[in-house]
């Protein structure tokens, strides 16, 4: 059975239909790429799966449990977390404290244990040097890694990464992808959303493509890239 399964997710905002019955399936230990142009409903899909939004219809099953309509924090504790597209560190807290919160609440650790774990994770993502700095004072690239570190601290089985690579330099992207691969190697399942195709293609084992709230393609990266509808969606009809 799949680790995470979303079936027939519908979501509308007033007259605007953001998702029109999307299915998503993530296997254990897999990296799934989700691509789609701006406004295709990727973030809405993530928000529906992590309880930030409530889908109008459809079900989300995680680890064999139906988590549809659960509050965000409960889904997090069940092992499914997401990073935000716009990074939202707790600005007034130090980098370490940011990660600490994840361990304390997401994983239910005691303070001492959570602190030790936070240090380990910061080491792993390469932020150990910045541990004592206020989260408001670090660079964008570091904030992206902090966002990931905070998620890792909650002890997840799957992480949804919402454009975690946006705004990074090629070198930084390469570093991040290496990090994602190593996390995946440790058994973590990942869903990576980007609208930059290249990055996702390199790291994903499987890719699905969203356009106007519909899934238009799914399969191994090479196959998806060749799909006529995908090219239309990304580049316009004349290129197809």
């Amino acid at each position: 059975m799949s680790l995470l399964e979303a079936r027939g997710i519908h979501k509308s905002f007033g007259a605007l239909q953001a998702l029109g019955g999307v299915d998503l399936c993530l296997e254990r230990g897999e990296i799934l790429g989700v691509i789609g142009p701006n406004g295709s409903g990727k973030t809405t899909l993530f928000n529906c799966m992590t309880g930030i939004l409530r889908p109008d219809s459809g079900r989300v099953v995680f680890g064999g449990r139906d988590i549809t309509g659960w509050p965000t924090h409960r889904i997090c504790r069940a092992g499914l977390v997401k990073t935000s597209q716009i990074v939202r560190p707790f600005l007034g807290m130090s980098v370490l404290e940011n990660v600490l919160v994840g361990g304390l609440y997401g994983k239910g650790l005691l303070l001492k244990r959570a602190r030790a774990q936070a240090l380990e994770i910061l080491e792993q993502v390469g932020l150990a040097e910045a541990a004592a700095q206020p989260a408001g004072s670090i660079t964008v690239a570091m904030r992206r890694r902090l966002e990931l570190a905070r998620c890792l601290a909650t002890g997840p089985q799957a992480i949804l990464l919402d454009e975690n690579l946006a705004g990074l330099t090629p070198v930084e992207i390469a570093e991040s992808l290496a990090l994602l691969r190593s996390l995946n190697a440790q058994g973590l399942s990942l869903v990576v959303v980007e609208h930059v195709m290249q990055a996702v293609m390199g790291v994903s084992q499987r890719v699905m493509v969203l356009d106007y709230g519909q899934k238009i393609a799914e399969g191994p990266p090479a196959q998806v890239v060749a799909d006529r509808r995908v090219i239309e969606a990304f580049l316009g009809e004349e290129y197809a």
Partner: protein
Amino acid sequence: MSGGGRRSLYLGLAAVAAMAWLPAAGPAYYLQLLTIIFYWIGLAACWNLMCGYTGYIDFGSAAYTGIGAYVAGLLMLRLGLPLLATIPLAGLGAGLVALAVGWPTLRLRGAYFAIATFALAEALMRVCEEWSGLTEGGVGITIPQRLAELSYYWLYLGLAGLLVGVTWWVEHHKHGYGLKAIHQDEQAAAQVGVDTHLIKLQTYVTSAFFIGMLGALEGSRLGYFKPDDVFNVHITIKMVIMSLLGGMGTVLGPVIGASFLQLVEDFLGARFLNYYLVIIGAIIVGVIVFLPRGITGSLRQRLRIRPGRRP
């Protein structure tokens, strides 16, 4: 717990012990002034615990002093319960109301939360005023029992000490990180597993519980009150100002804010009868303009005391 944290705990306990011993030595009026200062430290600490840490501005905290005072007063008047037995019941009453109110209200944010809490406090005051069969309405009630003057000193000292202690504990434990995370970004906090609504509710109810007890004690100390004495919006405003002057979301903020405001008011009130409130207004404006982090925060900054905790 770090060594510095433990030291500050001992220092705090020593300060409370020294204050408890003071009545044996101190001059009488200062005991009275301190009694009132402790009372306000208690109230400001309650407000700070909820609002200072989460950033939710409660403009209706006086609802809980009012409920506390009336629950205790009516239990004494109607059922003849002894005063000390009514105090925890008053806290319980306030806590229960806070539970019922907090459940829906804590989903609001910013100015909306502020005005919703204010509206409820105002509505409760009117209910208390109109329901004269139970509360004797606007004429007020006379409380038949009173403790000895020094008992109030010790009780308020104890409660203020306890509440500052609770704040200290929260600051250094899991709960504090949760509250601060909510203050920073509630959505992000939920995404890393913080049950934001539950923590807010727990804190809100705890704070209301203690506000209720303080209100009940002060009601009995005054001996007589009417709805607009104990539900007064000025009580809330004072809690807010004291927390902010001292420094919101800090352990010692309410202590410094309450002591500062009460002492300054007492000092200036005796010397500049007609102008002292103008001066206090100017001081508040001055603090905001020149020390925007509150007295503690700004002093700490000026004295270059690093706020960072050792990792």
